[in-house]
C-alpha cells in the first residue's frame, strides 16, 4: 500500500511538473517579457541589464526551477494588464467559480440520479426512451448554447432571472459568497443549471447502465420474491449498489467542470477564474494564463489521485495495477 501510495503521488507530481513546464514555456517563448516592460526610450544597455537582473540569461533549467519554486509558494508574478499580483487576482475570483461548480454538481446529482433510476426501471416505455433521446441531444449541445437559450427564455422573454453578474455578495474572511443574499441566489440559478446540463446527462446514463446491471442480480430477485415493495427494492437495495461509480465520476468531473465553467462564466459574465482566464487570453496576459493553467490542472490531478488512492484503500486488487 505504501509503495502504491508513493508511486501514485510521484506520478501526480510528474504530471504537475510537466504542466508547469508547459506553462513556463508559454511564459518564456510567447512574446518577450522585456518588450512588455520597457518603453521606446530604453537603451539596449538598460534592456540587457534588466534582462540580466530578471535572470532571463540563466540556463533554461535554472529559470524553470525558479518558476516552479515560486509557483509552489503561490507566486506567479504580476499581471501584465492590471499590474496586480496574479495570485490575489485569482484568489478574488476563486470563490465565484467554486460556488458555481459545486451548485452545478449538486443539481446534476439531484436531477440525474432519479432520472437514471426512472429510465432503468421503466425501460422501453415512451418516456424513458424519450429521456434517452434527450440525453443524446444534451450531449450534443455545447454549453454556451444552453446558456444562451436559458438567457433567451428566462431573462429576455420571461424576465424572471438575472442573466449576468453575481448579484450581491457577502464576504466571510477572504471568501465571498452569493448564497446568503436573495440577488446572489437568483444570479446563481441560470449559470449553474447551464453548467450542470452536460453533467446531468452523464449521471443519468451512468445510473441507468448500473441499475440495469444490478436489477438483474440475484439479491434483487430475492428481495422481490420476499415481497419487499417495489420502491424499496429500487431505491434501497438496487440504487445503493450503483452509487459508488456515480460518486467516483462526480468527484473526478469536478475538475473538468471547473475548466468548462470558463465557457459558462463567459456567457453569463460570471466574475470567476474562467472569465479572468479568457480576458487574459484575449489580452495575452501570460502570467495569468500560466497561473490558471497550473491551478486548474492541480485541482484536476489532485482529485484524480485522491479518487485512485481511495479506490486502492477500498479494493486491494487495484494496488498492483499499472500506475
Amino acid at each position, binding site marked *: 500500500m505504501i509503495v502504491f501510495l508513493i508511486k501514485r503521488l510521484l506520478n501526480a507530481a510528474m*504530471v504537475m511538473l510537466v*504542466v508547469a513546464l508547459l506553462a513556463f514555456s508559454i511564459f518564456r517563448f*510567447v512574446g518577450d517579457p522585456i518588450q512588455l516592460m520597457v518603453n521606446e526610450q530604453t537603451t539596449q544597455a538598460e534592456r540587457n541589464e534588466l534582462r540580466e537582473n530578471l535572470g532571463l540569461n540563466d540556463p533554461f533549467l535554472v529559470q524553470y526551477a525558479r518558476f516552479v519554486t515560486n509557483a509552489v509558494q503561490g507566486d506567479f508574478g504580476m499581471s501584465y494588464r492590471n499590474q496586480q499580483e496574479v495570485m490575489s487576482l485569482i484568489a478574488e475570483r476563486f470563490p465565484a467559480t467554486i460556488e458555481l461548480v459545486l451548485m452545478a454538481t449538486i443539481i446534476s446529482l439531484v436531477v440525474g440520479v432519479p432520472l437514471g433510476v426512472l429510465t432503468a426501471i421503466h425501460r422501453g416505455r415512451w418516456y424513458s426512451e424519450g429521456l434517452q433521446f434527450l440525453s443524446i441531444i444534451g450531449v450534443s*449541445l*455545447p454549453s454556451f448554447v444552453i446558456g444562451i437559450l436559458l438567457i433567451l427564455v428566462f431573462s429576455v422573454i420571461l424576465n424572471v432571472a438575472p442573466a449576468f453578474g453575481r448579484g450581491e455578495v457577502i464576504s466571510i474572511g477572504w471568501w465571498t459568497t452569493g448564497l446568503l443574499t436573495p440577488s446572489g441566489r437568483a444570479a446563481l440559478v441560470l449559470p449553474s443549471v447551464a453548467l450542470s446540463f452536460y453533467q446531468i446527462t452523464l449521471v443519468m446514463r451512468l445510473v441507468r447502465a448500473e441499475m440495469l446491471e444490478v436489477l438483474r442480480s440475484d439479491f434483487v430477485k430475492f428481495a422481490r420474491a420476499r415481497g419487499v415493495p417495489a420502491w424499496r427494492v429500487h431505491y434501497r437495495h438496487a440504487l445503493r449498489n450503483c452509487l459508488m461509480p456515480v460518486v467516483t465520476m462526480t468527484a473526478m468531473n469536478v475538475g473538468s467542470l471547473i475548466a468548462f465553467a*470558463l*465557457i459558462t462564466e463567459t456567457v453569463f459574465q460570471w466574475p470567476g477564474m474562467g472569465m479572468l482566464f*479568457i480576458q487574459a487570453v484575449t489580452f495575452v496576459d501570460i502570467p495569468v494564463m500560466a497561473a490558471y493553467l497550473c491551478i486548474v*490542472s492541480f485541482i484536476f490531478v489532485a482529485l484524480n489521485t485522491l479518487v485512485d488512492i481511495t479506490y486502492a484503500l477500498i479494493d486491494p486488487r487495484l494496488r498492483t495495477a499499472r500506475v
Partner: protein
Amino acid sequence: MTDLPDARTARMTENPAPLPRSDRLARFFASDLWWSFRSHPMAMAAAFLLVFLIVAAFAAPLYVPQNPFDPAELQLINAEIPPIWMEGGQWPWILGTDTQGRDILSAILYGSRISIMIGLASVVLSLIVCIGLGLMAGYYGGIIDNALMRVGDILLSIPTILIAILVSAVVRQMLPPSLRDIGAGGVLVLAIVLSAWVQYARTVRAQASVEKGKDYVQAARLLKVPARRIMFRHILPNTLTPILVAATLNFGMAILTEATLSFLGIGMPASQPSLGTLIRLGNQFLFAGIWWVVLFPVLQLCLLVVAVNLLGDWLRDALNPKLR
C-alpha cells in the same frame, strides 16, 4: 420496411456467392451494416439531415440572396428585418437580417461551410497522425509505445478544452499579425487535433496490439513481409471499424470545439465567421430584441451536431459485434 428482417434471413439462407467480387457497391448494399441502417429510422433521419445540411451549406452561393461577407452587398436600409413570418418580414430575407443588413440565412449557410470544413480537416488530420502513431505503438511496442502512453497520460490530465484554448491562443500569438485572420482556420484545426488526438491514438493502438498477436500477422512476418506493409495492408483494414466510429463522433466533437473557441473569441474572426462566431456576434444583441440573429445560428449548430452524434451512436452499436 416491415419485410426487411425476412429479406435478411432470406439472404442468409440463400447462397451469397453470386455477388461479383468487383462490385463493391452491391456488396455494401447486401451488408449487415446497410441492413442495420435501413432498419433504424433514427439513423436514416440523421443521415438524411446531415447530407441535406452539408449540401445546403456548400451549394449556398448558388441560391442565397447575397454573399453575406461581401460588404458591397450589404445595405443598412435592410438592417434588423425580422424573419419573414413575423410582422415586418420581407422577401427574400427569410430568416431576417442583422444590424448591418446581413441576411441571416446566407450567413448561417456560409458559416456552416466554414464549420464543416474545419471539422473535416481536423478529423482527417487526426486520422493521419493517430493511425500512424497508434499503429507504430501497437505493432512495435517497447519505447515508442511507452512514450506515447506517457505523453497521453499527461495530456489526459489537463482538461481538453484548456489545451484547445491554450494552443489556439499561443499559436495565434506566434503568427505575424497579417497572417492571423487568414491562418485562423489552420490554427483551429491544430488546436482541435492536439486536444483530441490522445483518445484516438489509443483506440488505434489497442486494436493494433490485439491484431498483432493473431496468426495472419505471424504468417505475414514469417513470409518476410516488410513491417510497413504488415501495418498498413494487413493490420489497418482489420482495425478500421472502431476507427470509423471514433472518427464520426470526433467530427461532432470537432465542430463543437471549433464553435466554442470561436464563441470565446479565439477562433474564426468576424471577417470569415463560422457558426460559433455568428453566435458570439449575435449574442451582443440578445437584449436588443433581435433574437433571430442569435437563435438561428444556434439551431443550425445544434442540428448539425445532433445529426452527427445520432449517426455516430448508431454506427457504434451497429458495428459492435457484441450487440448483434
